[in-house]
């Protein structure tokens, strides 16, 4: 049995990793739950955001916060444009999975074409900075990512719960025809939501660039875990996605500490399978 410090450290790193899962899951959960689009492009956009941050910072020496200020609005526009295609072709739930898969592969190929398949690491001065809490180390950047995820999750939750647009979106997800009859302009709000969700992918991308080593195939590495997070958290439930991210992150890192790293995927997917079988109504 590992020591208390090791366990504590692995809980901390699990929470931090979970925050990033939650951040990635947020946009996916919104578009799946409220627009009924299963958007695999989300992962590719996040990685594209990461590569752009890398390119801006490593090659052009633009600081990450400035890169974020450029990437987030650009991704919002990209999300809106993407939704224009879905809306024009009336892409349904299942077809969206296939179409966005195709888009993700195209983006992956473009990334590989431009940046090659080699690993890329964005070295920054603060990459290794960390805060010491008692015997535990908390890496600053990951903490920041985790806090961003929490802030965005709560802000999104409040937005959906209290704003007119949020209520309208939820009403349209429940019954589009009825919501339209009551004057809800679903099209306009769907564009807004897609933009927001893509912007979230951009934010996640900036953090991924700062925290992780980049490779084009990472698009697929996130896929399974983040889907598990989305489903466990409940569709269109921002806080649920965050908490599920923590749950999966901690259970993975505890498995790594107690058993061996290689068994970690088994835990998250077993949680997912059990939840799907016992509570299928969540999706």
């Amino acid at each position, binding site marked *: 049995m590992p020591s208390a410090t090791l366990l504590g450290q692995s809980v901390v790193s699990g929470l931090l990793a979970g925050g990033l899962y939650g951040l990635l899951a947020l946009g996916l959960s919104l578009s799946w739950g409220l627009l009924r689009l299963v958007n695999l492009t989300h992962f590719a956009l996040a990685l594209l955001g990461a590569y752009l941050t890398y390119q801006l910072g490593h090659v052009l020496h633009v600081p990450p916060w400035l890169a974020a200020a450029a990437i987030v609005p650009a991704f919002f526009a990209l999300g809106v444009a993407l939704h224009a295609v879905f809306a024009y072709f009336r892409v349904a739930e299942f077809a969206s999975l296939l179409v966005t898969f195709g*888009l993700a592969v*195209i983006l992956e*190929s473009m990334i590989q074409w431009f940046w090659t398949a080699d690993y890329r690491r964005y070295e920054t001065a603060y990459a290794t900075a960390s805060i010491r809490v008692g015997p535990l180390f908390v890496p600053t950047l990951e903490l920041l990512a985790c806090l961003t995820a929490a802030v965005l999750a709560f802000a999104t939750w409040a937005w959906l719960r209290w704003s007119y647009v949020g209520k309208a979106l939820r009403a349209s997800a429940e019954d589009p025809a009825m919501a339209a009859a009551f004057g809800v302009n679903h099209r306009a709000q769907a564009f807004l939501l897609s933009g927001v969700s893509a912007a979230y992918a951009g934010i996640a991308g900036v953090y991924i660039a700062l925290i992780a080593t980049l490779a084009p195939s990472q698009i697929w590495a996130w896929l399974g875990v983040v889907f598990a997070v989305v489903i466990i958290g409940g569709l269109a439930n921002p806080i649920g996605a965050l908490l599920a991210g923590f749950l999966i992150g901690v259970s993975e890192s505890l498995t790594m500490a107690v058993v061996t790293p290689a068994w970690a995927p*088994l835990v998250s997917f077993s949680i997912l399978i059990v939840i799907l*079988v016992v509570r*299928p109504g969540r999706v």
Partner: protein
Amino acid sequence: MSGDRRRVAVSLAVVALGLGALAAVGLPAFYESFLYLIFSWIALATSWAILSGYAGYFSFGHGAFFGAGMYTTATLTSGFGVPFLWTLPAAGAVAAALAAGIGAVVFRVKRLRGELFGLLTLAITFVLATIVLNTRIDGGPGVYLSAVPMPRLLASPTGTLYLLGLVLAAATVSAAYAIAHSRLGRGLYAIHDDEDVAEVEGVPTLRYKLVAFTISAGIAGVAGGIHAMYVSYVTVGETFAITVPLYVVLMSVLGGARHWLGPAVGAVIIASSLYAFTGGQHAVLGRAVVALALILVILFLPEGVVPTVLRHWRSRARQPETAVAVRDLAAAVFAPSSVPAEPLVCYDVWKAFGGIQALRGVSLSVAPGEIVGLVGPNGSGKTTLINVISGHDEADRGRVALGSTSLTGRPAHEIAGRGVSRTYQIPRPFGHFTARENVALAATFGAARCSPGEARHEAQGWLEFTGLGSRATALPHELNLHERKFLELARALAARPRVILLDEVLSGLNPAEITSAIGLIRQIHARGVAILFVEHLIRAVLELSHRVVVLNEGEVIASGVPNEVMRDDRVVEVYLGKAHVVA
């Protein structure tokens, strides 16, 4: 029909034998490997479509079954020295058993939707990969098969693989064809369109899904077994990669997943275009091109290449629809007459949905040959009662029986098989089936138990009976409400039920249509069928029923001869309010 079948069988055999002869003559090894890969993809994509294309449950777990097969062969040959060919049945069996086990759990999940099934099967792939990687099956470094002797079916090892791939691909395509034209296939297509209705029409949906899943996985397992020998070095990373499930989906969707030949055509297109782009930067470009093709196909040819081409070709050729012999149903006998006519009895049936108590101890009976009208205000539980009798919903308490056989707790398809059929208030035809195919499905799976061949004639007969004879080849969305209501009726009749449950067949019809519908119900009754009909139209109730049962808030408040019941104070109160009750 049978001529068609013979043509397909002959052309398949010619193609397979031709390709086989090619190998015997001896092809350059390069072509043999290339063609082997195409055969392998044909087998994988076609087997995937047997469940996922026909029944619409898209699985992203085909890689798990393929991988199970690969590791079965790898383990048996390198670890236990079993000859390669002998491991292939084992590879298929392991994958099939895995699918049967997963299916037995997953298909029992209520309201299992398509995307959910897709994600579950994907998750299972990751779990299986983790287990294989961390146990002695692989252990991390991978398994080498280079020392395993290759059987000498043909002179060269690549020739042997070519031949094995060819045999598997041909067998898989034949199986897909046979299934598409069998009872199983009809049932799977119906599940695709509307699973609840399929079950109520008599399709054993759980069993069919399981059988299709098992066959599909078994074939993928064999393909994996052969592929283990082809790569000769098996690793978890390669085996359980996202490539297999995704390419299989792409190929099938591109070619047309609902058509038996679609996945094979898609496999040829994608596998050859991938091959054209192998190596270096070209591979990247190739992937992007395939992905772009996928997007364009989904957006512009959502049905896939094969069905689109066939439709285009048929509408060009404009072959006159071969007339289907109409079975004379004037003397049609309903229900197995050997079985003594028995009453349908509901005794103390309770049913709640969450906090709403829809039925509170309803008891009623319908004697053989009787017409019972079930009336009551909206929300009084009439449709719920029909759903409980037909097995669509299970009662919380109480008993439903047909004579001495209890229907309680039986799956809906068994109830249909025992001669209870129903119509839906809002017609629910199978969207991809023509009117005749809709009716034929009921004839195949209901109490009538026709063979698929007979069912066509039987169905045509019932379409004529309900006045839809000329609309036999129309798709449901081309029919108007009146025609769809009558299609519901034809479908219920084609099962040759002993008891028929009619849920507001008259609602939404105009007066002339109502008169013809009432005439039709009389004729149905004249054939000895007992009828329980829910209706708001009091004129029809009074004209047709021998007996009327009135439901209010889930309870029977009156029952008896129509004219008396309609004068009952409580009935008048429920319908019109207290003020109208004659003191």
